[in-house]
């Protein structure tokens, strides 16, 4: 993991001091709420429906056991004993007090954490593949690039007041787990024939009210040019992006309005002027950062552990968990263990302080003290010996963290919705809970197979409904909560946006509608065919027929 040096630490410490003074000025009445707003937003502090909400940055979703324990401590001491992991790989505290905010930030700074740029119209906390450094299919570790981008974007003097927020995601694997094609910039690390590293640069993807899939603006950008190239993209956007209408201010609208060709021409013209300047990293810095992400000291092990195989045979429940929640590791004898934060009837992404401490302890013992947060609101133990998986599973289970539902219908992404958010039209969390209760039968879930349900409580699409295999969007219909259903979305390397299949359905009918959809799928699928593949083969008509026939 990356560790701060004196420079990184001084920046975060001074930032805490600065915010301390801003809070003092607010409490003393020297600042109005309106004047305070942009300042608090730059420190991740939102004013929600009922209280302030603090969004803590977990850069590219990577943290240590030590940091997780601090989050647990903050949840207990300053909040109501829990936190909420988000689709940006961050953590939100829903009930902090304004006057305690400087103390919370000071506690975070003690463990090299902060809340910088988790909100506001700036370059947000960069996200990456949660399996970084572990995935069997990885070309290069995306965390190195993500850390380079994190530093470059932190308090960027030119790009802190962009037309709108700006999100960058990095993946180093052909299997896209970071949703690179639906970000303002998506970076996919590739290797050329000579083995040199570079980036496929994708710009202008995004969800929200105008969902778009990004366009490739560079097929293979040599690694050393990364910062000058993205600085050129940001400069074009900062100058030409729309500022008259916040709903048309994201870079995707600019790319669309100019056309990809003209946008690329402008970026290249800008890049030509700065590509060999000091904007790019000096020699040595990339290597310095990369050294922090050297593989941990893996033991030389056999590719397949005999004990692991035996436990799977002997314990069906364990086998079920291993089948859904364990992914292959690049190192022989190791695997990646996913921790579901979607227990039956639970709130997607929520974890109690007790659970956070439990995960910290398990990671310390079994995963080199490393923990990841996924954009699907789960946690990951990236480096677990196969021989330890049974112990890991048992410990997780005793903390209600071993639900074997990764990628299944109850592994739902949901935004906070009307329970917390002042923008929402409808509730998301209770709906996710109802769906997971209806499909509580794990055998049924496993039979349905991979199915990603994503729920947004309003058109801003924080729940990523456009890229859900089944997407649900909350709409307000004369004061009633209704949900528009989309099918066929996906955020992976074959990104697609879901299609609306018909009129919105009322809250009370949504769970039935989902069941009708899954039943229809089961009737249509060929042997081993996933929901998404079936949908792509047959289209929306059969689903529309069964769903609306009864109405």
């Amino acid at each position, binding site marked *: 993991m990356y560790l701060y*040096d*004196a*420079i*990184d630490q*001084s*920046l975060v410490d*001074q*930032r805490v*001091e*600065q915010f301390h003074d*801003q809070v003092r000025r607010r409490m003393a009445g020297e600042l109005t709420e309106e*004047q305070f707003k*942009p*300042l608090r937003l730059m420190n991740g502090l939102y004013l929600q429906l009922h209280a302030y909400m603090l969004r803590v940055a977990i850069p590219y979703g990577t943290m240590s056991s030590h940091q997780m324990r601090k989050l647990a401590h903050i949840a207990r001491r300053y909040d109501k004993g829990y936190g909420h992991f988000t689709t940006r790989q961050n953590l939100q505290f829903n009930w902090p007090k304004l006057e305690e905010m400087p103390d919370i930030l000071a506690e975070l700074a003690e463990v090299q954490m902060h809340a910088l740029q988790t909100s506001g*119209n700036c370059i947000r906390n960069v996200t990456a593949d949660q399996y970084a450094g572990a995935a069997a299919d990885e070309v290069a570790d995306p965390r190195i690039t993500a850390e380079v981008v994190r*530093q*470059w*974007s*932190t*308090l*960027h*003097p*030119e*790009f*802190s*007041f*962009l*037309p709108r927020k700006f999100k960058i995601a990095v993946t180093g694997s052909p299997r896209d787990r970071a949703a690179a094609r639906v970000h303002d910039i998506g970076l996919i690390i590739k290797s050329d024939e000579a083995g040199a590293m570079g980036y496929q640069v994708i710009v202008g993807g995004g969800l929200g009210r105008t969902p778009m899939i990004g366009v490739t603006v560079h097929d293979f950008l040599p690694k050393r040019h990364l910062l000058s190239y993205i600085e050129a993209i940001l*400069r074009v956007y*900062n*100058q030409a992006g729309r*500022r008259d209408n916040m709903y048309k201010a994201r870079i995707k609208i600019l790319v669309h309005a100019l056309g990809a060709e003209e946008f690329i021409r402008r970026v290249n013209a800008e890049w030509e*002027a700065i590509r060999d*300047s*000091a*904007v790019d*990293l*000096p*020699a*040595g*810095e990339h290597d*310095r950062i990369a050294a922090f992400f050297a593989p941990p000291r893996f033991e030389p092990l056999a590719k397949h552990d005999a004990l692991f195989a035996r436990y799977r045979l002997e314990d069906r429940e364990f086998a079920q968990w291993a089948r859904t929640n364990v992914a292959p590791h690049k190192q022989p004898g190791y695997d990646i263990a996913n921790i579901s934060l979607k227990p039956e009837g639970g709130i997607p992404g929520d974890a109690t302080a007790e659970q956070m401490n439990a995960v910290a302890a398990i990671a310390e013992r079994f995963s080199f003290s490393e923990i990841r947060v996924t954009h699907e609101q789960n946690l990951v133990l990236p480096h677990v010996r196969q021989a330890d998986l049974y112990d890991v599973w048992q410990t997780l289970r005793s903390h209600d963290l071993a639900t074997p539902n990764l990628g299944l219908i109850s592994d739902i992404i949901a935004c906070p919705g009307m329970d917390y958010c002042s923008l929402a039209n409808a509730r998301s969390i209770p709906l996710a809970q109802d769906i997971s209760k209806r499909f509580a039968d794990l055998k049924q879930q496993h039979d349905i197979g991979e199915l990603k349900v994503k729920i947004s409580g309003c058109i801003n699409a924080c729940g990523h409904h456009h890229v859900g295999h089944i997407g649900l969007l909350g709409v307000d219909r004369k004061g009633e909560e209704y949900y528009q259903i989309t099918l066929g979305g996906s955020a992976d390397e074959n990104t697609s946006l879901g299609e609306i299949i018909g009129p919105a359905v009322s809250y009370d009918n949504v769970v039935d509608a989902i069941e009708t959809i899954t039943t229809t799928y089961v009737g249509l699928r060929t042997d081993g065919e996933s929901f998404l593949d079936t949908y792509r083969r047959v289209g929306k008509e059969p689903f529309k027929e069964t769903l609306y026939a009864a109405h």
Partner: protein
Amino acid sequence: MPLIKSKQVVIDTWQHVDDEMALPADGGVIISLARWQAEQTVLVGRNAPLGIRLKSDEGVDTIINDLPRFGVVALEFPTFKDGRPYSTARLLRQRHHYTEELRAVGDILRDQVQFMRRCGFDAFEFADKTAAEKAIAAFDEIEAVYQTAADRRRSAAMIRNDTTNAFLNGTCG
């Protein structure tokens, strides 16, 4: 209006002249781009310093050919949220090598002056004197920077990869 230069409140020797106002007989004036474009001959003939004021949507291309004529370029922030002048400032300083005064005008708040200075602004107009005085402390709230920009500060990466490393040795950190 109170003006900060070199971290001090100073007397402004320039006068903003609105488009409908007559030009004063002498003294430095700051005029709009529209007026510059309309009255160029008259303005060049006037034997006094000339400054120009750009709105946030008036990019650097509008004045680059005339840059040597200006003793001040004032970039307007209609609201602090409009970040276009940051890019304009860097382009003026770093691409077009403009060395005279670069002034931030409009909605100028203490919490943005660090960013402005990094992009090349060296003069800041505040609405009142108290705000200006309080803003002076804000210039040095955060020492470390991660990027190279239009100021002379060395980025964290440059310091780290330099063997004579004052910051990490603790002499200025």
